[in-house]
Structure formats: C-alpha cells, structure tokens
C-alpha cells in the first residue's frame, strides 16, 4: 500500500478517540487556511499585474458562495489557532500534563473556545451577507 493510500485509509477508518479527530480537524483546517492564503496572495498580486482582474476577484469575494466559504474559513483559522496553542502548551511547556484524561478534556475545551469565537463572528458575517446580497435588515 502506498503511503498516501495508507494515510487516507488510516484517517478515514482508524477508530481513534478525541485526539485522532482533533488531529484530522487540525490538518483539514490547516489545509483550508493555507489554500485561502495562496489564493489571497495571488489575487492581491493582481493589483499590480492585472488591475482589472483584481476588481473581478473582489466582486467574486462579495458573492454569496464566497461569503459562506469565508464563514468556513473563519472556523478553520480559529480552530487551527486555538488547537495549535493547546498542542504547543502541552508539548513544549508542560509535557508532564500529557495524560489521556487531560488530553481528552483539552480537545473538548479547544472546540468549545473555537465555537465561542466562531458563532458570533459567523453571525456578523452572515448578517452582512444578507444585508448586502439580499437586501435583508433594510439593506
């Protein structure tokens, strides 16, 4: 079995616990954030190289589809950041706290903190999207 096939088989079929799913979510959110950053660097470079295309890119960002994707992007950034801090704290500052109960608890807290930041941010973003794209709330 190739490494890629083994990896994907393991990701999808291994029945790990909180840590396994936290690891996978960290990977997915990291990829999501990296993908956006690449696109963002490219579209920003259009300001200099292709100004007309830049305007087109901005109008795409204002579309409903991108608006929804941005809500997902904010989740990616928040989860990846908070989980990264959790892992760095345990791994680099307090390795002796790396026990099964503390790890399981900390993954749940990480998700809770992420949601506490993401839900209000999403509400504001969705409000703006409905206001500008659909004329809701007097827009």
């Amino acid at each position: 079995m190739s490494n890629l096939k083994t990896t994907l088989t393991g990701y999808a079929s291994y029945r790990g616990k909180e840590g396994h799913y936290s690891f996978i979510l960290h990977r997915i959110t990291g990829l999501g954030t990296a993908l956006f950053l690449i696109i963002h660097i490219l579209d920003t470079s259009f300001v200099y190289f292709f100004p007309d295309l830049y305007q087109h890119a901005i109008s795409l960002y204002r579309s409903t589809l991108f608006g929804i994707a941005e809500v997902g992007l904010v989740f990616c950034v928040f989860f990846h950041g908070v989980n990264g801090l959790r892992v760095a704290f345990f791994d680099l500052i307090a390795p002796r706290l790396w026990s099964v109960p503390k790890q399981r608890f900390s993954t749940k807290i990480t998700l809770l903190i992420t949601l506490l930041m993401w839900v209000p941010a999403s509400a504001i973003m969705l409000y703006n999207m409905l206001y500008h794209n659909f004329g809701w709330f007097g827009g």
Partner: protein
Amino acid sequence: MQIKLKVFRYLPHTGKKPHYDTYEMEVDPNERVLDVLEQVRADSDPSLGYRRSCAHGVCGSDAMRINGRNMLACKVLVKDLNSTQITVEPILGLKVLRDLIVDMEPFFDHFRSVMPYFVNDDPIPEDGKERLQSPAQRERFDDTTKCILCAACTTSCPSFWANGKYVGPAAIVNAHRFIFDSRDTAAAERLEVLNEDSGVWRCRTAFNCTEACPRDIEITKAIAEVKQVIYSGKIE
C-alpha cells in the same frame, strides 16, 4: 452469542487479491478475539495466518486492528467490543505478508536505530559491584520500561502512516527508557538520532499511540519529554 467475524485475507501464493472473509459463529462472550481466531483456524479455515505466542499480553505478537482500533487480540474480550460484528485487520503502515501477518522488520530497524540498550563504559565503582540508583531515579523511566514491542502504537500513528521513515512512538519510548536512566551515558547519541528529520518532531500528538498501548504507557508524554530534553539540553 452469535457473531459475524470479518477477517482481512491475503494469501500471496494463491494469486488472489486482498479481500475479507466472513464467518458466522457461536462464541462465549468471555472469549478473547484470539480465541475466536483460533476457533476459525481449527474449525473453518486452517490457512488463516496470524502471529501469537504467549497469548497473555506479554509477548506482543498479536497486535491487530480490531473493529478499527489497534489492540492485542489476546487482551480483548468479545463482550468488551459491544458488537456482534467483529472486523479484524492487520496493523497499518507495515507491509502485509499474509492475512494478519505484517513485516515487522522496518519497525525493528527503527527500534535498533535508537540504541535500545544500556551503555556505560566507565569502570565499575570500586566500593561495590553495581551502579547504584535511587528509587526516584529509577521511577523517572519506570513507565517506559513496560514496552513489549507489539507495534500497536507505531502503527496507529498518522505520522508513521504518512512516512515510514519516522522512527515511531515505540522507538522513542525505548530511547526514553535509557535517556532518563541516570546510569546510562549514551543519551547524546540517542538524542542526535531523535533530533533528525525522522525523529521526535514528526509526532503530531494525535494520541492514538497512548490510547492503543496495551501496557498503558503514557507514550505522548514520553515523546514530549524527549522533545523537551532536545530543546532545553537538560535531562531532568
């Protein structure tokens, strides 16, 4: 109880592709998965291949994926799986030689790479015949002495699935056992190996290793302690 046992099969000499065989059988809920496999081999299919030796969780021969999770077949009871469907597959990340038997050589190569043996070329102390150690010094690495090299940890690790060059949790656990031994003098050599690209920094703290260890070794903690020694330069 009636169960449906699904087993990964691969017999290279038959030319057949890897597939799953299913056996419907009556078993005692207090039987272990290893007993169930023995029953299949005795009653249904003598060609079924798997490793087993002591059958009591000491030799570490029968690590396999049982219902998607690495376990020792001799340590898990059928009733503890809470299911009448049992799927048994080989551990991931090592080449399958036959059925549930994988090639353990890459695993043992990584184990050997960290010098998993006591090193001290200093002369024996004049006032005694042994190198004394306090109970606290012995306690420091007690947890990592328990490894039985079953590979349940290494083959549950996403970093190992992605890159077989990663030394893996088991090798790091066995390095930890000697790095923190106050009598040993080869910590620097081991840390050099573990500080390489294929060393401890590939650990992403997914915790599958700790959850899978049949000896309850706190593996992620041991790996983090080795990381800390590498970046702090101090063995505490």
